[in-house]
Every structure is written in C-alpha cells, then in structure tokens.
C-alpha cells in the first residue's frame, strides 16, 4: 500500500479488522511483526517515529483528549517545544467554523458530548498546521450537516494528505477519494 502526497485515502473494512492499527503502525505506536512502514522514504523506527509524529496530525477513534479544561488542552498543545513556532491564536475562527460556542474553551473535557469532543480534536489537528492527517472515525458522532462540512474540509484541499478510517459514506462520496479495502488488501476506487 502506497500513499502519495496530496492523496485522500479512505480505508474501509469491518470493525476490528485492524484499520486503526495501521495508523498506529505508521506513527510508531506499534512495532510491525513483519514488514516495514516508510514515511517520506525513511523506515519508521525508534529514531524517525518522533519526527513522523510531528508531521502528522492524528485523531484517534476514542478522541482521547484526557481531562481538564478545554483551554488547558489548547495551551498544552501549543506549549510543546515542537509546536513553539505555531500560532494557536486563530482557534476562535475555527471554533466558529465548526459551529461550537466560544465558551466551550471554559468547559471541562469530560462534560463535552461526543460530537463536541470530535470537533475540538479536529480544531487542534488543524491548528497544528500539518499537511498530513490521520483521521480515525472522526465524524461518527456528528450530524449530517457537520459530517459534510468536516469531510469537505479535509478532502478538498490540494496540499493536504488525508488517511481516513471511517464507516461514514460521507467520505467516499467524493470521486477523487481513493478507497482501500482493508480485508481484500486492494484499491477499490
């Protein structure tokens, strides 16, 4: 399986078939028993995985944002050394764009709904200003209108590479999207 720059790839397959593990492998969270993952021509190993993680914006399917106030999470992400060059100032624009209230920053993560958590994690992913997105079931708790908005955001940008795990048809309706059948191990579209 090979993904080029600018590709929008949706991985399809049954739940539990290991689609999410594929993302974990690429991020160096799991070591492959067999075979090798390459990122920008280099094998993902103990050294390179740290760099890989700084180039990919990743959202896991459980949206594991931790606990505490939402604004604290933004501060934490912005405060990391690797993100020192980033400007998190435009977060309000994105909060509006994804149809959340600005007051959400003052809420605690635990009291957010599933849909709110998904949108917060999307906003953080965008603020990281990376060109590659690994998105694992990020629209499962959103309504139709928001699903379209999110899918549109990640599929219609030329310089963005997206690797998407989802059961949502909203991702595969776009003709330019490539679909990889994870069980058959073949490209469908």
């Amino acid at each position, binding site marked *: 399986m090979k993904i080029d720059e600018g590709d929008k790839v949706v991985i399809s397959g049954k739940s539990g078939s290991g689609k999410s593990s594929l993302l*974990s492998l690429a*991020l*160096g*969270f*799991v*070591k492959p028993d067999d075979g090798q993952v390459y990122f920008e021509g280099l094998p993902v190993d*103990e*050294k390179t*995985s*740290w760099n890989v*993680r*700084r180039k*990919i*914006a*990743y*959202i*896991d399917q*459980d949206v*594991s*944002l*931790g606990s505490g106030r939402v604004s604290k999470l933004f501060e*934490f*992400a912005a405060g*990391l*050394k*690797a*993100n020192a060059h980033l400007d998190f100032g435009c977060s309000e624009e994105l909060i509006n764009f994804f149809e959340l209230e600005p007051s959400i920053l003052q809420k605690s993560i635990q009291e957010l709904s599933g849909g709110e958590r998904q949108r917060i994690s999307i906003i*953080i992913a965008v603020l*990281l200003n990376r060109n590659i997105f*690994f998105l694992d079931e990020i629209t499962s708790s959103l309504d139709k209108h928001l699903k379209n908005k999110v899918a549109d955001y990640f599929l219609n940008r030329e310089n963005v590479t997206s690797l998407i795990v989802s059961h949502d048809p909203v991702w595969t309706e776009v003709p330019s999207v490539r679909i990889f059948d994870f069980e058959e191990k073949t490209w469908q579209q």
Partner: protein
Amino acid sequence: MATIDIPVLSLALTFLLFLIPVAISRIFGLKLIKPLFTSTLRMVIQLALIGVFLKYLFIWNNPFVNFGWLVIMIVVAVFSSVKSSSLKMSKIFIPAFASFSTATLLVVFYLNIFIIPLENVFDARYLIVLGGMLLGNSLRGNIVGISTFYRQLKNDTNHYLYVLSLGASHYEALLPYIRESVQLALKPTLAAMATMGIVALPGMMTGVILGGASPELAIKYQILIMVAIVVSTITSVVLTILLTMHVCLNRFGVLRNDVFRKSQAG
C-alpha cells in the same frame, strides 16, 4: 527519668485487647481474625529477632556491619514496594534499588556528617535508626508513586499516544503523569507534617521521650527527621520513576507490556 520496664507477662496481657477486633470481625463477618493473628505473629517474631540482632549491632558497632545492614534494609524496602506495584521485579529491581539507595544514603549521611555532631558517622544508633525511618517512609511513598504512575500510564494509553502525536517529547508527554504520582505519593507525608504535634505525637518523638530525653530534645529530633523524611521520600519517588521509565518504555516512547506481571498484562 528512665523508661519503666514492661514485664513480659504484662505485655502478653496487651493481647487481651484483641478481644475487641475479634468480636467486631465475628459480628460483621469481616474474616479478619486469621490475617490479624498471622500479621501479629509475624510482627512478634520479626521484632524479637531484630531485637536480638540490634542489641549485638549496637554492641559491635562495626561500620561495615552497620552499613551492610542498612543495605539489607534498602533491599527489603525495594522488594516490598515493587511487589505492591504491578511491575515485574526482575525488570525494575535495579533502578528502584539505585534510587532508594541514593535518596536514603544522601540524606542520612548529610544528617550524620553535618547536622548531628557524630564522631562516627556509621554509628549504629543513628545510621540504622534514621535510615530505617527514612526507608519506611520512602517505601510508603514509592508504593503510591510507582503504582500510580504506571497504572495511570497504562489506563491512559490512548491519551498518552495522542499527546505523543501532538509532537510531545518523551519527557513532555510523561511530565503530567510524573507530577500526579509524585504529588499523590507525598500527600500523606505532607499531611502528617502539617498536623504534627496536634493530631499525632510521632513515633520518633515518643521514642525519644520514653527513652528519657527531654521533650525539647525530642522536638529537635522530630523536626530533623520530618525534614529528612520529606526530602528522601520525594527524591526516591522521583528517581524511581525516572530510572524505571527507561526500562519500562521502549525507544518509541511506548509502554512495554512485558514489564507487567502476568496477571496484570493485557
């Protein structure tokens, strides 16, 4: 003012008080009678042996023997704190031993060399008694500290990985967990310190007063020992976490499953 001796027979009568927990256990079906008696038996045997041992230790007062005994105490403390965590002894014994030793020896020798004007810094009465108090407390702190750290990290794996994906370095990603476990580990010690003298007359002070010294002297020793306990506890907890981290996480920054004991893995 010498301490009044307790005749052995009277000491035995102390156990009459056990009628109370035995009755409570019976009434509420707590099944505590057996553990109560096994623990008591262990305590009596261990203390009897150590009583004899300490007597000779104090008589010989040989620097090598004293130091050797302190090392044995450290080994036992490390064993019991690792045992109460979910980690494998074989993996983390060495780093835990290194951190317990550093923290205890550093503080004990600082006291024995600079604070208490001792002629012999290996004097059993100070080296072993002070060392033991520090170890007992480090032990308690570490039981909370390392268990919390690794349990949190394990239960929170997805969030931890998410933080790594945000671009966090190893250290940045682990810092919140280190903070939480050290704070939790230190809580009982800080609480004990804050209520000292009011809620509890601590063991050290009771011992010194019963031993015939003036309360003023007892208080001086108590202050000294509490400062020493806080310092050695925080040092050993932080060091244990930092040193075991390198064993328990792989170079991808991910927690290794094989460091947990079988029943805990998964």
